[in-house]
C-alpha cells in the first residue's frame, strides 16, 4: 500500500493538502488543469488484510457517483482502477457542513424548516436518478449556495445496478443514529429509508437530541421498531405542531404511514398551514402497555410493511390541477376535474395541489392586503375547495393554493417547479383571435413545464369555421 505525500501526482492529479477523514479512505485537496472546478481525491485504505467492505464501498461509490448529475451531488471527475492506484476524484464542495450546524441544535424553527426543504429537494433529485443514499447523516450533507449537496455514496444503492454490498452481507449497514428500521432488517432498496433518516436529522436539529441515541448492537438498533422516541414537543415546546407532525411522519416505522416521496415532505414544509396535525395515540404507554406488548409476538418484517417503491412507480407523486374559476365553476372547470380524477386514479397515494390564480394588474400589487382584496381571496379559496370536493380526497393528500400573479402561466410553472410536481392538469379555452395573439396559459405551461402536462379542452359541439365543400 503506497503512502502519499503532498506534491505526489496520481494520473495528473497533484495532491495539495490532506483533509481530515474517516477510517475508510484518505481525502486530499488536489489540482488538475484538466478540470475547471476544485478537486478532492478520495483514496481508499486498501492495506493487505483490509476489510472487504472497504473495497466494496469504493466500488459502489465509484459506480454510483459517476452516474449521478445535478447540483445536489459533487461532480465526478475521474477514478483510478483498483488494479493500480484506486481513487475517486470529485468536486470539492464549498459550503457549511451540517455536522457543524447540528452542534448548535436546537435551532430556530424557521432554520430547521429551511434545512429540511434543502435536504428534501436534494433527496428528490437523488431518488429521481434511481439512487437511494442509505447513509444520510449530518456528516454527509453540505449546505451550499446551490442547495444541499449529499456526499459519500459508499453504502448507496442504484436500482439498475447490482447490489454488490447487499449481496455480500446481511448485516445492517448504515449509521446507528439515523438508520431506518427496514435497513436494520437488511433491506437496501427503498427511497423511504432516506426519508426516515431525514426525519431523524430534523428531530435532532429541532430538539438538540438524537432520537435513538447511538446503539452499538443490532438489538439496540432494533429497538426503534418497537419503541417510539420521545415526542419532539416534549423536549422543546418551541417546535410548532405542524413541524412535529412532519418529523414524526418521516420517522414512521410502518412505511405505509411514512412519507413515500421527498416531494411530499417538501410540499408540507413549504405550506405549514396545510399540514394535517393528527392527534397521536402514544404507543404502549405505561406498565400495562409494556406488559401487553411483551405477549404480542409480532414479526419484525410486518412492522415495517412493504417497500414504497411498488407504489411510487405507478404514477406522479404530486398532481397539480390548475383551474380557472374567474367565471365560477364552468364546463371547462368540470372537465379539468374529470381529467384530474383520471390522473389521480393511477396511484393510490398521490397528492393533489389545487391551484387557481387571482390575476393582478401590476407586479407588487397585493389585493389580499386590504379588506376587499381579502374577501376576493377568501371567496376564491372557498370556490376552489368546492370545485375539488367531488374528488373526496382525504385532507392529508390535498392542498389548496390561491396564487396572486400577473401571469397565471408563470405562477403555475413556479409552483410546479418549487414543489417537484409530477403532472400538471390545465384547461384550454377554445381558440380566439385575442388568445392566438397573446398566447394562452396552457400553451406556455406546456412549453415550459419540467413535467408532463395534460391539456383539457371541451369537445366542440359544432364544427366551426369549416367551409362547405
Amino acid at each position, binding site marked *: 500500500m503506497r503512502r502519499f505525500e503532498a506534491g505526489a501526482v496520481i494520473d495528473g492529479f497533484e495532491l495539495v493538502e490532506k483533509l481530515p477523514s474517516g477510517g475508510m479512505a484518505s481525502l486530499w485537496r488536489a489540482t488538475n488543469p484538466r478540470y475547471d472546478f476544485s478537486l478532492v481525491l478520495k483514496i481508499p485504505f486498501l492495506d493487505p488484510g483490509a476489510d472487504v467492505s472497504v473495497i466494496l464501498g469504493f466500488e459502489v461509490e465509484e459506480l454510483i457517483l459517476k452516474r449521478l448529475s445535478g447540483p445536489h451531488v459533487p461532480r465526478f471527475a475521474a477514478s483510478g482502477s483498483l488494479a493500480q492506484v484506486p481513487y475517486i476524484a470529485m468536486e470539492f464542495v464549498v459550503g457549511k457542513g451540517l455536522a457543524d450546524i447540528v452542534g448548535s441544535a436546537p435551532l430556530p424553527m424557521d432554520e430547521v424548516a429551511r434545512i429540511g426543504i434543502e435536504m428534501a429537494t436534494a433527496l428528490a433529485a437523488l431518488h429521481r436518478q434511481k439512487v437511494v443514499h442509505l447513509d444520510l447523516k449530518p456528516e454527509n450533507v453540505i449546505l451550499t449556495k446551490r442547495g444541499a449537496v449529499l456526499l459519500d455514496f459508499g453504502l448507496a444503492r442504484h436500482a439498475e445496478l*447490482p447490489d454488490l454490498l447487499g449481496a455480500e452481507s446481511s448485516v445492517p449497514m448504515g449509521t446507528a443514529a439515523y438508520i431506518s428500521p427496514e435497513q436494520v432488517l437488511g433491506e437496501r432498496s427503498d427511497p423511504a429509508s432516506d426519508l426516515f433518516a431525514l426525519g431523524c436529522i430534523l428531530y435532532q436539529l429541532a430538539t438538540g437530541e438524537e432520537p435513538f441515541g447511538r446503539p452499538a448492537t443490532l438489538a439496540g438498533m432494533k429497538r426503534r421498531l418497537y419503541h417510539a422516541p420521545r415526542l419532539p414537543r416534549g423536549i422543546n415546546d418551541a417546535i410548532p405542531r405542524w413541524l412535529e407532525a412532519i418529523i414524526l411522519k418521516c420517522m414512521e416505522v410502518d412505511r405505509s404511514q411514512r412519507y413515500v416521496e421527498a416531494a411530499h415532505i417538501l410540499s408540507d414544509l413549504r405550506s405549514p398551514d396545510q399540514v394535517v396535525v393528527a392527534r397521536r395515540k402514544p404507543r404502549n404507554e405505561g406498565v400495562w402497555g409494556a406488559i401487553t406488548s411483551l405477549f404480542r409476538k409480532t414479526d419484525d418484517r410486518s412492522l415495517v410493511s412493504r417497500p414504497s417503491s411498488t407504489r411510487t412507480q405507478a404514477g406522479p407523486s404530486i398532481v397539480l390541477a390548475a383551474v380557472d374559476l374567474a367565471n365560477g365553476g364552468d364546463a371547462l372547470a368540470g372537465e379539468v376535474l374529470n381529467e384530474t380524477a383520471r390522473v389521480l386514479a393511477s396511484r393510490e397515494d398521490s397528492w393533489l395541489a389545487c391551484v387557481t390564480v387571482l390575476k393582478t394588474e401590476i407586479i407588487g400589487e397585493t389585493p389580499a392586503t386590504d379588506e376587499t382584496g381579502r374577501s376576493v381571496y377568501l371567496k376564491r379559496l372557498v370556490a376552489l375547495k368546492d370545485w375539488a370536493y367531488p374528488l373526496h380526497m382525504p385532507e392529508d393528500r390535498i392542498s389548496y393554493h390561491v396564487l396572486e400573479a400577473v401571469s397565471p402561466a408563470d405562477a403555475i410553472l413556479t409552483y410546479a417547479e418549487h414543489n417537484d410536481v409530477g403532472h400538471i392538469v390545465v384547461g384550454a379555452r377554445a381558440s380566439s383571435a385575442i388568445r392566438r395573439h397573446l398566447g394562452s396559459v396552457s400553451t406556455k405551461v406546456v412549453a415550459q413545464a419540467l413535467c408532463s402536462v395534460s391539456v383539457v379542452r371541451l369537445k366542440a359541439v359544432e364544427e366551426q369555421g369549416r367551409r362547405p365543400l
Partner: protein
Amino acid sequence: MRIAILSDIHANREAFDAVMEAVHERGSPDELVLLGDMVGYGPDPIYVIEKAAHLMADGALCIMGNHDEAVALNLGNMTETARFAVQWTRERITPAHLDFLARLPLSLQSEDRLYVHASAERPGKWPYIRDLDAAERCLSASDARFVFCGHTHIPAIYYALPGRRPVHFQPHDNVAAPLSEMRRHLVIAGAIGQPRDGNPAACFVLVDTQRQEVTMVRVPYDHEETARKIHAAGLPGWLGMRLKIGR
C-alpha cells in the same frame, strides 16, 4: 473494443435477421460471437447455418451448442419436443450442413474472454447455470476474466471476487451493467431465437471493454411470422406459442 454475442438462435430466421440489423445499427463490432444452438426448435435451420458460415468466413467466432451436437450426431438425450425438432432438422439439411455443425468447437478463448455454450465446467455435459453453485463451479473451471455462456435462455451476470461467493445480478433490458476491474464475470446471454425470461423480444449481448459495460440489448421481431412457419412446417405448436409469450 466492442463485442456482440448472439446465443441460442435456434433456427429462427426473423429473430436472427432483426438482431444482425440491430448489431450493425450500432456500428460493426470488433468481435462477433455465435454462442451455440444455431439450430433446433425453429423452422429455418438451413438459412441460419449458411448465414453463420458466412459470418465465420468474415471472422466471427462460432461454438457448438447441445442442439447443434444432437443434430450433427443424431443424439436423442433431450426432451420430447427437442428430440422431435432434432429429427425434423436432420431430415431437411444436407451432409455439408451437418459437417459444419459437427466441426464447431465446444469453447473458444479470445484474450481474457472464454466463450462456451453451457458452462466452463464440463462443457460437453451441457450443465445449466441457474444458481450460485453452478456459477461458482463454472468460474472455478476457468481462469478467464470473462466467461460468456448461453443455454438457459435467461440473462444473468455473476460478479466474483477471489475467495468469495459470486454475486448474482439480473441485468435490466437495454441498461448497461458495469464490469469491474477487480472482479471476474460470468455473463449468461439471453436467447435470440427463443427467449424464456417473459419478454418475447430477441436478446443479444453487447460488451464495451473501454466503458467496462455489458448490455442485454432487446430486439423486437416478427415472432408471429416465425410461429406461422413453425405451424406450417408441422413442428409442435408449443414451439410457436412460446415465442409469443417469451417463456
